[in-house]
């Protein structure tokens, strides 16, 4: 049991630091670092939800940025119509419409694409998830009403009772609490019978099939949950940037999400969050030194893949647990 406690301690310390440090930065006149922490928390939610299918389910989705982007557009499009008219039934700034819309749209998209993608395996799965993301990318680019390639500028954030998203501290608070909830949710799912089947299928698919489980249905359900959570992250991201662009769905963005999960440690609760923190902080530090920061960044990426198996969590918790 001792290593579990150690892991629990690490999680508690990291999450506490993430809760306390950004507001301290803000109150000492470093507002930019609060923004950084908000973006980090939002991307961490996306990474946590990708981890559900990638880490626990063994399904390497290379198109998760599309869910983030769709979620953001679900906030942006109603706001756009509220600001500039057209499609009255959709025009609203209410968060109680926008956020459920983001979740519903992404869940539906995950259901449709997942039904096709999950028929394939291995690299075929990696590439077909990317293909669907590219399709959505080009579809959005072609809709002039919503800015096409230029993206959608929304000068208004979702309206919610009690919290004012225009206040950066409250927006960070929402993102942070959402991240905690997302982590708990994934933890609960993976400890349930459903999660056990999902993880079992990752290790030995045939055995689970022999045991009478409909693996396809389990995976599709996980894919939909993961997509919808990413959609929620997208809704937060749209509110944070007040600007939504198709670039959010680019395949390299999907790659970054994957990297966060692997860097931190796949199939762990804290891993994706650690990965997101490391990713954003390193990117920020390197890019402030040189415009050629992609070079050391790429080397670091390769180094992590080549030498740090199990990601940061693997390093933190020592070698004993490696064989999970």
């Amino acid at each position, binding site marked *: 049991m001792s290593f579990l406690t150690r892991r629990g301690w690490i999680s508690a310390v990291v999450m506490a630091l993430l809760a306390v440090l950004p507001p301290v930065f803000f109150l000492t006149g*470093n507002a*930019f*670092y609060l923004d950084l922490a908000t973006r980090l928390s939002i991307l961490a939610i996306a990474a946590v939800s990708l981890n559900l299918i990638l880490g626990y389910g063994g399904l390497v989705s290379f198109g998760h940025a599309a869910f983030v982007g769709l979620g953001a557009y679900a906030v942006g499009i109603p706001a756009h119509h509220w600001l500039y008219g057209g499609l009255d039934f959709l025009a609203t700034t209410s968060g109680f419409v926008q956020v459920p819309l983001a979740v519903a749209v992404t869940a539906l998209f995950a259901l449709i694409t997942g039904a096709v993608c999950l028929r394939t395996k291995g690299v075929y799965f990696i590439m077909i998830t990317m293909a669907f993301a590219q399709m959505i990318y080009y579809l959005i680019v072609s809709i002039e009403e919503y800015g*096409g*390639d230029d*993206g959608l*500028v929304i000068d208004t954030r979702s309206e919610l009772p009690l919290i004012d998203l225009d206040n950066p501290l409250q927006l960070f608070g929402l993102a942070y609490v959402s991240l905690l909830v997302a982590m708990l949710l994934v933890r609960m799912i993976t400890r349930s019978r459903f999660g056990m089947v999902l993880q079992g299928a990752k290790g030995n698919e045939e055995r689970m099939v022999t045991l009478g489980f409909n693996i396809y249905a389990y995976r599709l359900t996980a894919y939909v949950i993961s997509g919808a959570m990413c959609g929620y992250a997208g809704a937060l991201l749209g509110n944070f*940037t*007040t600007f939504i*662009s198709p670039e959010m769905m680019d395949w390299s963005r999907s790659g970054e999400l994957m990297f966060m999960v692997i860097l931190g440690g796949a199939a762990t609760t804290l891993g994706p969050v650690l990965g997101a923190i490391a990713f954003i902080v390193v990117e920020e530090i390197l890019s402030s030194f040189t415009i050629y920061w992609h070079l050391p960044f790429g080397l670091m990426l390769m180094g992590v893949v080549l030498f740090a198996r199990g990601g940061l969590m693997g390093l933190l918790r020592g070698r004993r647990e490696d064989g999970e």
Partner: protein
Amino acid sequence: MKKLLTLTLAAGLMSTAAWAESVKIGFVTTLTTGAAIIGTDMQNAANLAVEHLGGKAGNLDLEVIFADDGFAPETGKQATDKLVKQDDVDFVTGYIWSHVLLASRKSALDAGKFLISANAGPSQIAGKLCDENFFSTSWQNDQTPMAMGEVLNRQGVKSLYVMAPNYAAGKDMVAGVERTFKGEIVGRDLTKWGADAQLDFSAELAKAKASGADGIFVFYPGAAGGAFIKQYDQAGLKDTLPLYSVFTVDGLSLPKLQAANFQAVLGSRTTQEWDPSLDNAANKRFVADFKAKHGTYPSFYAAQSYDAIMLIASAVAKVGNTEDKDALRAALKAAEFESVRGDFKFGTNNMPVQNFYLREVVADADGTWTTKVVETVFEDHIDSYAAECKM
């Protein structure tokens, strides 16, 4: 992890110590990806402006902080946020791309900073999204192709084939030329743009040739411009399908085209609000010093960036501090500086009211390929969206 955070904390605290006797200008442009060729040119021009000013705007030290937008709106917005919130700049300028400017606009304006575009000119920002703290030293997207449409009318072109990338500025360019061109548009191709932009135009050029048009109008900024010119050259269309372009043939693509000896570009026509051959003292000094330092002619991106720094410096020098926003705004609007375009004035929506010239690609006295002014197409032209601006 803790160490890392302490490190950032220390870095953060250090950079907040504001330097009272200086004026800080944030300059957002593209310094990575292939589009860095444009950003580097702008950076060179901005540095030259600072040098010409002796590093001072009046009594205040002038400091320009460059930031990379990575050719992506979200990155550009983050760069703007950092300049505004962390470096606490007084002005933000640069901006090559419409989408980066639109994404960053709110960050700069909400923080009460002045935002000066040195290139991007999407229609929204000249019209319904205009702002008293936004200024431009470039143009509104439609204006340059509108001038080209007028040129086509004067040259008796009756039918035209149109090509542009499929994104907002591309569509603005097409809309612009169609607004003034009176002949017939016999074909229109919007090609794939973005991270995996289409650079092989064989299918489109074949269609253009088959259409039998009197001329072809294109808009391909950056690397795509060079690619287009080459294929136009290889397809042997120079005599049958004369090329009329905007923002495609410029000070950045010409050295490359000359190195590879793509003769088809010589004699091609393009419209612009500025040209290295414009006859005024500020421009002569700018072009000569730029050439001496970097070995090439400056591009229009460079000229606009130079003007942006000069405009800001003139306003700060006049007011004497960076605190009095109302006085600064009035001083910016007055635009009392030596522009490389000659006289410079703003319209009601803070976009320049300026001339547009027809330029032709020629070889200069040393044999270097450049452009020269053929005629003035528009005088004191006001953009089409000024009326939509409620200010």
